[in-house]
């Protein structure tokens, strides 16, 4: 209990609400960094963020919905890699497999640059005793079963998370 005990570690409470590959990063990065600083961390995975707790992860990135996303190639000479390719919406919306391609390019770029994968970051969070709470209501709405999720996560609701967040020093919605 952060508030009652002055010697208690700092606490971070996060809400992870987005399930695309790009937005899967911030909660796991912040949680593992805070855990590494000795903070207590809890993440509430709700709505599209909930699938980030599944045993099998299948995140994609959606360039169509993110106009500021730079489209770059993760291979070839440096000058080629630095080109930002113009991708009109009409192309991104109509070319079959465009998101799959963008996803594999982003994964390759992140790997080349030395960014850990979501699977690795999540494993680190487990090692650092980060509390990961899956939203029960989202499970019911989307028809997910408890067995589809990693065994390390808990299942709870809004009140459970709010009670935890009330004693947190930092609370963020992602």
């Amino acid at each position: 209990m952060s508030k009652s005990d002055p010697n208690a570690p700092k606490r971070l409470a996060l809400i992870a609400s987005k399930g695309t590959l790009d937005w899967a990063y911030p909660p796991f990065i912040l949680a593992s960094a805070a855990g590494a600083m000795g903070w207590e961390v809890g993440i509430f995975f709700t709505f599209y963020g909930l699938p980030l707790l599944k045993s099998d992860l299948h995140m994609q990135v959606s360039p169509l919905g993110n106009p500021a996303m730079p489209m770059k190639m993760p291979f070839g000479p440096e000058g080629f890699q630095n080109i930002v390719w113009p991708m009109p919406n009409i192309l991104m919306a109509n070319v079959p497999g465009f998101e799959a391609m963008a996803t594999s390019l982003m994964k390759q770029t992140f790997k080349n640059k030395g960014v850990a994968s979501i699977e690795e970051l999540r494993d680190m969070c487990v090692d650092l005793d980060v509390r990961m709470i899956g939203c029960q209501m989202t499970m019911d709405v989307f028809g997910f079963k408890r067995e589809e999720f990693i065994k390390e996560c808990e299942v709870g609701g809004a009140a459970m998370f709010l009670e935890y967040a009330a004693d947190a020093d930092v609370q963020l919605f992602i």
Partner: protein
Amino acid sequence: MTDVIKEDQVLDCSGMLCPMPVVKTSKAMKEMQSGQVLKMVATDPGAPPDMEAWSRQTGNELLRSMTEGGKFIFYLKKK
């Protein structure tokens, strides 16, 4: 000339980006004894401010932070 700091352990985080250097450092420090010194090497330009914050938050003293041949080198003493 600055004094030479004798490290007990070396951790190479070259090529890794945030938050890996911080997480790996924390993991390595957990295995060490109080008073021992960890030398951590990183190439992430975000590492210097991150390691300063990590040191303040965890109480493990950052004895020295320096740049050498494009690498960032940190000496951290376990509290």
